[in-house]
């Protein structure tokens, strides 16, 4: 395989979510095979039928296609509903191992200012925000204040500085806490200015929508000071701040939080149903032993997804995959589009094109190893239950393990009329870690 072909193939099968500009050429609508049709229409309708600001959540497995669905939503809102959509990936702005409301709010301010300047050529007045930031920085312990002063930290750079230093972040948070309300007001002032700009007759946009992606990747580690997880803290305790922005906002939330006992509380607090982007069904086994008629369509759509990318680089299916190997990789993916892309890339890197049986086997082994490295004996009873019944019973004692299995994607969530779980196909037929003996 020529270097150039290899390079283009490598680029085409990036596991990253589609960019809005690629939606038209590379997007495949998977709603029908996810079992929960209309995630994007639901989010869109909520925004467009309500005059006031809305706040919505979207959950899903990592790699289930949330970001791609959000890119599609963004495109629809911009093109069909005159919305000015500001979308940002939380991981670019925040340290997802440790996020609190002040950091998130400052990141939002930074992104709004940047997008308004770049896309609307609107220089937002930041006097209120600067006042709040100055008060926060003014209260820092001397050494940090000296650093901040020497840096000339303003609203724009503070957010980035917070991302990079836990110590600085801790200090700033302490100072920012009593200012959170003022911070929200200052951001709402920015939002107000953008909204007024959009109301001009010559503006092609009418409404501001803020999409904050990747918060579903928040650390599941417990926050020392509160004793529960970062995501739980941010979305439940900090809900008043998250919902007080004066524009339409969509946050992604971790799937394990949405499916935790706090899920109902979450839905109640945000006043909305909690849409979930489930995995694409590609396996005939849906846990109840019955063949799944939708799975064939799922496999077909994922093949289409691969085909589009191959078309994009001028390759045919036959030249890229030996017979049966794409199906094997689709099966291995368990319906996770990002895993499918990643494993195709890996297989091609090792053995070149077309991807053969050995390549697929090697990738399968690597996937399995990766998943097994994260498993502990305590996970086994749940995995056995999933394997046997397609269900995963949650209790006070297994809550942690339950969440970890979903987070690690050792167990995948699917949806028919009801929700059900399946082992990640990479674990099929594998000996699981031996359960611990009960204590005498």
């Amino acid at each position, binding site marked *: 395989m020529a270097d150039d072909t290899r390079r283009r193939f490598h680029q085409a099968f990036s596991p*990253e979510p589609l960019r809005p500009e690629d939606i038209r050429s590379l997007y495949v609508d998977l709603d029908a095979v996810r079992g929960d049709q209309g995630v994007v229409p639901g989010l869109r309708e909520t925004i467009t039928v309500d005059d006031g600001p809305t706040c919505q959540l979207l959950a899903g497995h990592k790699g289930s296609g949330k970001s791609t669905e959000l890119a599609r939503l963004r495109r629809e809102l911009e093109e069909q509903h005159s919305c000015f959509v500001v979308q940002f990936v939380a991981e670019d702005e925040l340290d997802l191992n440790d996020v609190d409301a002040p950091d998130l709010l400052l990141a939002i301010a930074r992104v709004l200012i940047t997008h308004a300047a770049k896309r609307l050529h609107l220089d937002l007045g930041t006097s209120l925000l600067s006042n709040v930031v100055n008060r926060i920085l*003014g209260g820092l312990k001397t050494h940090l204040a000296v650093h901040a002063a020497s840096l000339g930290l303003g609203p724009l750079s503070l957010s980035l500085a917070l991302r990079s230093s836990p110590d600085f972040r801790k200090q700033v948070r302490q100072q920012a806490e009593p200012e959170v309300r003022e911070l929200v007001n200052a951001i709402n002032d920015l939002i107000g200015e953008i909204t007024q700009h959009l109301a001009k007759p010559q503006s092609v946009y009418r409404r501001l929508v803020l999409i904050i992606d990747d918060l579903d990747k928040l650390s599941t580690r417990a926050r020392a000071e509160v004793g529960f997880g970062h995501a739980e803290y941010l979305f439940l305790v900090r809900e008043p701040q998250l919902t007080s922005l004066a524009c339409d906002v969509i946050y992604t939330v971790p799937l394990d939080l949405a499916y935790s006992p706090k899920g109902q509380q979450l839905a109640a607090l945000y006043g909305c149903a909690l849409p979930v982007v489930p995995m694409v069904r590609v396996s005939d086994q849906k846990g109840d032993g019955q063949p799944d008629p939708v799975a064939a369509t799922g496999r077909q759509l994922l093949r289409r997804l691969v085909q589009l990318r191959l078309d994009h680089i001028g390759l045919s299916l036959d030249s890229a995959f030996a017979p049966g190997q794409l199906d094997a990789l689709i099966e291995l993916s368990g319906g996770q589009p990002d895993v499918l892309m990643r494993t195709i890339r890996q297989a091609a890197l090792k053995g070149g094109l077309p991807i053969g049986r050995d390549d697929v086997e090697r990738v399968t082994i690597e996937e399995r190893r990766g998943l097994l490295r994260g498993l502990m004996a305590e996970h086994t009873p749940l995995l056995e239950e999933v394997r046997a019944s397609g269900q995963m019973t949650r209790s006070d004692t297994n809550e942690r393990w339950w969440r970890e299995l979903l987070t690690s994607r050792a167990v995948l969530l699917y949806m028919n009329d009801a929700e059900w779980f399946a082992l990640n196909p990479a674990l099929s037929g594998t000996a699981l870690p031996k359960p611990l003996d009960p204590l005498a």
Partner: protein
Amino acid sequence: MMDYRAARSALPDTTPEAELDLLRRLLDIGAGHFSLSLAVCNSSTLRDELIGAIRAEHPDLAVVAIPPGIENVYAYVREVQPAAAVGLFLTDLEQSTRTRQEWQPELRTLNAARELWEQRYRCPMVLWVPEDVDDLLARHAPDLFRYVSHRFWFLPRPDATRSVDLLPISGDLPRVTGAWLLSLAAADERANELADRLQRAGPSPTPQLVRHVIAWLLELAELRERQGRPGEAVDLAQEAVDLARGLGDHPRDRSLLADALGGLALRHADTGSHEVALAAQEEVVAIARELAAARPEVYLPGLAGSLANRAALLGKLDRREEALTAAEEAVVIGRGLAAARPASNRVELARSLSNLANGLHANGRHEEALEATEEAVGIYRDLAGQRPEAFRPSLATTLSNLGLCLRNLGRWEEALAATEEAVALCRSLAAALPEYYRPKLAMSLNNLSNRMGELGRWDEGLAAAEEAVGLFRDLATARPDEFRLSLASSLNSLCVRLRDLGRLDEALVASEAAVGLYHEVAAVRPGAFQSELALGLDNLGGLSSELGRRVEALAATTEAVAINRELADSWPDACRPDLARSLINLSNRLDDLGRREEALTAAEEAVGVCRDLAAARPEAFLPHLAKATVALANCFDGLGRAAEAVTMWRQAAEVLAPAFLAQPIAHLDLMAAILTRYLEACPDEDLHWTGLEPVLAKLEELGARQRST
């Protein structure tokens, strides 16, 4: 982390030429894939030569020099070099890193943006750095450091010594002001900006804009108030309320209506229209209750705040018990919130505690008021320690209140200390923002004058009172509705200080002015501020009497007694001390006019009231009881009942003795007057009581001190 020094010392000797070959090879095979390498080179001349040689072979090689002062290296490089095909070399990072000792923003942002580099640049990236920056990278950009896949050494000698030039770090901190502490110029600028936005929004803003318009109207109303345009402020707040009433029943819209009504209440209160303000605030509380019932976790803080404001407005209207009830409810909610999230809610709790203390004080529950105020001071002191600019104003106010609470319990020295601290804080605040903090300074000076007077420090007390009157006079000229009452109170304090120093004519002028202002305020708001008016009348009566204007003196004092009797009927705990004071004065005025039986009746009533008060709080009310007893003694003496008069003088001296021995200067005049009359009437030493000796000794000591000075 890799021990880079050990690793380096273990490297085989390398030559720049050999390393250059390796770097060339990386560029040949690495295009299309991101990788991060370090080229360690201490000489910029050598570095430039090497890069020039590579560039001759790879003309598309991108080389970006990082200018000094760039914090976000990624953003800068992305701007000047959005893409790179063959390779990307970054140089001169050391120009920034060497200007800072510990905090390395460029390295930290480099670290933070590590994934962004990979996403944007699909080619080898080489950071050309000297050895010391290589060290800094390990410390400040650990994640990036771990990304490094190759390291090329271009060092003449591996063990060359390092020398880092450090520039001094500026010790100047940015000046910090709160959003509510905008300078007048900044407030004007912001007001213009908001007025412009409102004009562009027009009278019927779009559905997406209407909520923003409401927020802008409320903010502009506040700024107009600060600019001394209160009427306009009320109109703007009313406009916000009208728009908010047009919104739906969604909780967010009800909450916005509550905000607008709360703003309207504040604007009305600023203009002295407390009844109208209270009506709006009642609606706020009703909405806040409705919202908090549905979602307590979100709306309870709002309910606590709205109750605290309601309590404050009820207090302004002298509806003391209702104010106290509202303040108590706010504190109960505030405590729960502060326990759950102290960082966010302690401020609100402190504010609620201060309101509660006001309510308790107004209802005569002084110990509890002190307790609440001490708790509030503790919170504000803690917060001000962390963020002086944000919380020193509240600390100053609360300290001033603490002084008053301590004084009410007879803890004079502590009261003075708290008030002095408050004045010092206000003075520094007013120096920075005079237009905003002069009222607070004037108020604290007035309180200081009173605390000084209570300890017999007359001259210092007078100086403070004069300064307070001067400040309030200016303020009342500009904003009479807001500051007329404060000016009257400060004139009252001035009058007392002048009288203490024997400057009676000047004191009378001040007193008449004060009473005139109180009458003006009372005419506007009948029923309000009666307690202040009664005090002014009492002072006026006393001064008139001392200046021989006995009829005028009796008229003023009779009016004061009538007012205080009515107040004491309604609020006995709070107002009986004032009634006792007025009754003593009335007895004296009647005695001056020879109406001795009536004087005796008034004095007996005064003694009865004071005895009850002193039984409950001896440290605070024994001096009052002494004064009432002296009035009674004078009446007996005037009526020719000498023995009863002697007994009363002796009782008065005994009652006053503990307070006199503790604070001799404060009670010197009264004790001297009592003993003079007692010893004249009863020269027989056998009739002296044992407690008299230390009192006489103290008087002798004070006399000796006075003679020596």
